[in-house]
């Protein structure tokens, strides 16, 4: 018997912490961690609404989001390692090769 708004407040807190992390961090790995926080907030919302509506669909979408997040972290860390090998730095504000 958990009231739904409490769960949504928790997810909102996770999401805004993730937004702050994406905007404020320079280190690319830390930016990826903040993105994980935001994806977790979305998953909490999906499971909570699915639970309230008595439907498994919310959990199915949460599982698919988890799979996509795993793929995203794998590719993201590969790009970060490639970047470190080429530039000796993974600060996102120093990466300006594609900037006109």
């Amino acid at each position, binding site marked *: *018997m*958990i*009231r*739904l*708004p409490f*769960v*949504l*407040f*928790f997810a*909102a*807190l*996770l*999401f805004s*912490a*993730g*937004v*702050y*992390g994406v*905007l*404020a*961090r*320079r*280190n690319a*790995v*830390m930016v*990826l*961690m903040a993105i*994980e*926080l935001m994806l*977790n907030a979305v*998953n*909490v919302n999906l499971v*909570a609404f*699915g*639970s*309230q509506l008595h439907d*498994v*669909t919310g*959990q*199915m979408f*949460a*599982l*698919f989001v*988890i*799979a*996509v*997040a*795993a793929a995203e*972290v*794998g*590719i993201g*860390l*590969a*790009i*970060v*390692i*490639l970047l*470190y090998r080429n530039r000796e730095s*993974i600060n996102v*504000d120093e990466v300006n090769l594609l900037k006109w």
Partner: protein
Amino acid sequence: MSAQEYAFVVLAIVGGVSAISVVLARNVVHAALYLVVTLLTVGGVYLLLGAEFVAWVQILIYVGAIVILFLFGLMLTKAPIGRDMLDNQNRWIGGVVGFGIFLGLVFLIQDAFKVQDSAAQVTFRTTTGDVGVSMFRDYVLPFEAVSFLLLAALIGAVVLARKDAEAK
């Protein structure tokens, strides 16, 4: 308030504090460990919401695999320590935006769902069997698409991170 709700509040406080610590920590390894705590509390919230399969997937995939990937990424790239090295100069804008988003979401949620409203209670329980039946009856095509996506991500990560032998 019921016992489940007390347990949820404890989990939410621990998870919220450690989520804020993830984005404020000055040491990258500490941030990764705070991320572990946050992901574990989210798994506990899934258990309290009656989603046992998602909870164990959360603990296996996130805590078991993704955090290890992050730690490998931190080890392979020289990670500096200290706020000025980890954060950029515009972090106060990030703080304003993050706090504004939090306030806006809280306002919208308490506007849409009255906190004292007993109709908005979560009482659902699902077993792993329900999730499996739903996945292989209604969501077979998305399941296959996700497995293809994971294969593509695997190959792409190997191709990207591999050292090019002949280019040197």
